[in-house]
């Protein structure tokens, strides 16, 4: 009989379909693994309400476990407690940076209009002389930035709390 620990290890091999460098564990979307009566229940939570990757993540989890002869798998989606970027693992943050996406910095106070956006170091050259191009980016979880020194545009994984 497979153990909970082994399931968690297998889930580390399931990657996020939009940011494949992150596993679903790094991303913090797997909230629980429950083994009972020969059933394996995996509890996941979406990053954003409309995240189109959730269905694929569910299918990829089932497939990965099936490849390892774990056939009775159920994936449940829960909304509460709501996902926050605090759940991104340290490991995940490093992987994001290497991949060219700046990991989340401290949150901006969204009630302050026209507040300075967070200072985000460029993942390419490390310069802190960067600017936000747009709060909204290529996916719900990102903003668009550009480095003023190396001029490289980059994604910033924006803070959600």
């Amino acid at each position, binding site marked *: 009989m497979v153990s909970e620990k082994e399931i968690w290890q297998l889930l580390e091999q399931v990657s996020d379909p939009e940011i494949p460098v992150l596993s679903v564990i790094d991303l913090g979307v797997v909230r629980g693994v429950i083994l009972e009566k020969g059933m394996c229940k995996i509890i996941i939570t*979406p990053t*954003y*309400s*409309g*995240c*189109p990757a959730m269905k694929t993540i569910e299918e990829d989890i089932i497939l990965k476990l099936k490849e390892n002869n774990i056939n009775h798998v159920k994936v449940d989606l*829960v*909304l*509460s*407690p*709501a*996902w*926050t970027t605090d759940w991104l693992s340290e490991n995940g943050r490093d992987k994001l940076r290497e991949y060219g996406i700046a990991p989340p910095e401290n949150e901006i106070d*969204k*009630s302050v*209009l*026209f507040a300075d956006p967070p200072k985000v170091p460029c993942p390419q050259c490390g310069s802190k002389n960067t600017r936000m*191009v*747009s*709060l*909204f*980016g*290529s996916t*719900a979880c990102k903003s*668009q930035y550009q480095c003023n020194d190396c001029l490289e545009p980059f994604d910033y994984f924006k803070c*959600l*709390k």
Partner: protein
Amino acid sequence: MSSLFEYTLRLGDDSLILGHRLSEWCGHGPVLEEDIAMTNIALDLVGQATSLLNYAGEVEGKERDGDSLAFLRFDREYKNLLLVEQPNGDFAITMVRQFLFDAYRKPLFERMQNSKDTMLASIAEKSLKETRYHLKHSSEWVIRMGDGTEESNRRAQEAVNTLWRYTSELFIIDELESKMADQGISPNLMEIEDDWKKTVDAVFKEATLTIPKNNWKQSGGRNGMHSEHLGYILTELQYMQRAYPNMKW
């Protein structure tokens, strides 16, 4: 029809119809960044609609899910606010509409986190984080346009004049609202209206926009009596399911 079902439909339909409206900007935004911003917000709203309508279907218990509620109801069965179905118009209309809605949704979700209905509470908890970003974005645009050039001010003020008549509907406490509030399921709309007014006053002041003197108000969406625009939205939204019943992909 159970009250909880109908109340959840109201919330879900607001998200779905406004999400659809915003998605119409895809490929037509005034600049690329705004195109992406509006479609991002659309995606959040459609995601919220999915959670809400799936839950409404569960509450109803007639084997309808979010998809069947979205794609197979007629206009009279839709319970969204008239505000959210209004046409996109120019960018000023779209952003003022978004601002008036976001300023209402944020305090609504804040308070709904304490709903006695645990599912609505968790949807509110999730959606609130997204709505904060939406409100920041729409507030800043209303200020930029209102306090911008003569032309942008004219357009923003016209947008306010056009849409203001649909705002009183946000706070009508009908039998269903008061029943839900009594049961601790929905928040008190009067408190939300206070918050909304504060936000609108502060942003309009900064934007040098004024609230129209003409106090004529329009309502009906919550009871399924819509403006002529909803039918066109549903025609497009539901086309595939109507043309090819039960199709899936």
